């Protein structure tokens, strides 16, 4: 195998590969957020069966490694005769993973709103969806921001695992470049900087949002 030096071209390749990491993360946020919200509601509605189903789903996903979920979707569905692309498998597994964790985080935030708030609003005649929407969720959103953002940062880093099913995102690209340059320190330093520059804005945005929401309600 031919060795070459780690150079500008490689850095460009890495930046280029960052697109896939970003794309996967956005898919996971959007899909995971949507389904996570749905599972949160199913967990909270006063309907036992839905609570159990939703909670079973959350526990199964939370109780198994993301790596395994990727294998199950990619190889498992192939065995059942469904040929899924690495893209589809990565998206499905990341959405499932993200939705379960977000659902659990959000359920906790909603149930952290004191019981008197629920009782006062239902005593005024508000139905369950009305009181969730107007009274409970606006208060829950505020406390949900730090854990939500903290978890999304985990998801960005978690997208690296999709390399095991052949998806060439940032980490996988770095491995390939390292194979031909044998300069692990340089290669992995660059992707560390890239991951950091993806995650850092999120955490600082979270801090700013939190501060703003605190100001607007407490004055």
């Amino acid at each position, binding site marked *: 195998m031919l060795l070459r030096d780690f150079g500008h071209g490689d850095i460009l390749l890495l930046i280029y590969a960052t697109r896939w990491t970003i794309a996967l993360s956005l898919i996971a946020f959007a899909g995971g957020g949507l389904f996570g919200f749905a599972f949160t509601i199913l967990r909270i509605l006063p309907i036992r069966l839905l609570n159990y189903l939703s909670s079973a789903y959350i526990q199964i996903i939370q109780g198994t490694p993301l790596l395994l979920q990727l294998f199950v979707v990619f190889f498992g569905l192939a065995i059942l005769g469904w040929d899924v692309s690495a893209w589809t498998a990565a998206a499905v597994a990341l959405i499932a993973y993200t939705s379960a964790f977000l659902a659990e985080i959000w359920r906790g935030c909603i149930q952290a709103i004191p019981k008197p*708030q629920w009782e006062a609003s239902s005593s005024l005649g*508000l139905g369950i969806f009305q009181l969730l929407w107007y009274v409970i969720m606006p208060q829950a959103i505020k406390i949900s921001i730090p854990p939500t953002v903290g978890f999304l940062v985990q998801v960005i880093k978690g997208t690296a695992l999709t390399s095991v099913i052949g998806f060439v995102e940032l980490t996988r690209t770095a491995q390939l470049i390292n194979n031909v340059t044998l300069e692990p320190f340089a290669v992995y330093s660059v992707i560390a900087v890239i991951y950091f520059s993806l995650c850092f804005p999120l955490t600082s945005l979270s801090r700013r949002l939190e501060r703003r929401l605190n100001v607007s309600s407490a*004055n």
Partner: protein
Amino acid sequence: MSLVQIEKVYKKFGDLQVLEDISLNVEEGQQIAIIGRSGSGKSTLLRCINGLEPINQGNIHVDGDLVNGQKTNLKLLRQKVGIVFQSYNLFPHLTVERNITLAPTVVKKFALADARALAHEVLRQVGLEDKIDSYPDQLSGGQQQRVAIARSLAMQPKVMLFDEITSALDPELIGEVLKVLEYLAQQGMTMILVTHEMGFAQRVADRVVFMHEGRIWESGPPEQLFASPETPELDSFIRAIL
């Protein structure tokens, strides 16, 4: 039929019998004061009347509607029953105005302009029109409690339940809240109020109900009840308080 009709109600929390054989009728325009030691079941009784707590036996009717039925529409029922809690329970993320207009617009589908006019009206009744744009945490306890009363009034309930609404207040703030209650009583609002303010109960209530160990131990007109209690339990309760 009485506006509020409570017949032979029993209620348990687990093994604990909290309400036992409670029967009570409240006519339109009447004011009923409920007194009794802590833990005697006063709050639970109020919470059963608007369906916040289910009962195990008996029947509760409000304005002809069965509260504890399988098919009861609690949303509709609760529009007829206002409740104000000891801890105000205003919505902290909403202004005073929105606290008040929320239920009329969302539940009763009032136009926002009408709901706002209503908010002004009920705030005037509790003397807080100037606080309409404040947030709850900018108000004193007494003011918050008056907003909570206004919020409840805005739903134009047929009966209002008050659960020790002055107990969490500093002594100098109790008067302003009691004044609002007296005003409502003069307006003919039907109310059931749990209170420790014996002087107030005596002044305002048509009838006083003394609860003890989950039962209605004694009840009657305030003068009679306070002046000549029939049971040693009420006698010692009154002595302890006065």
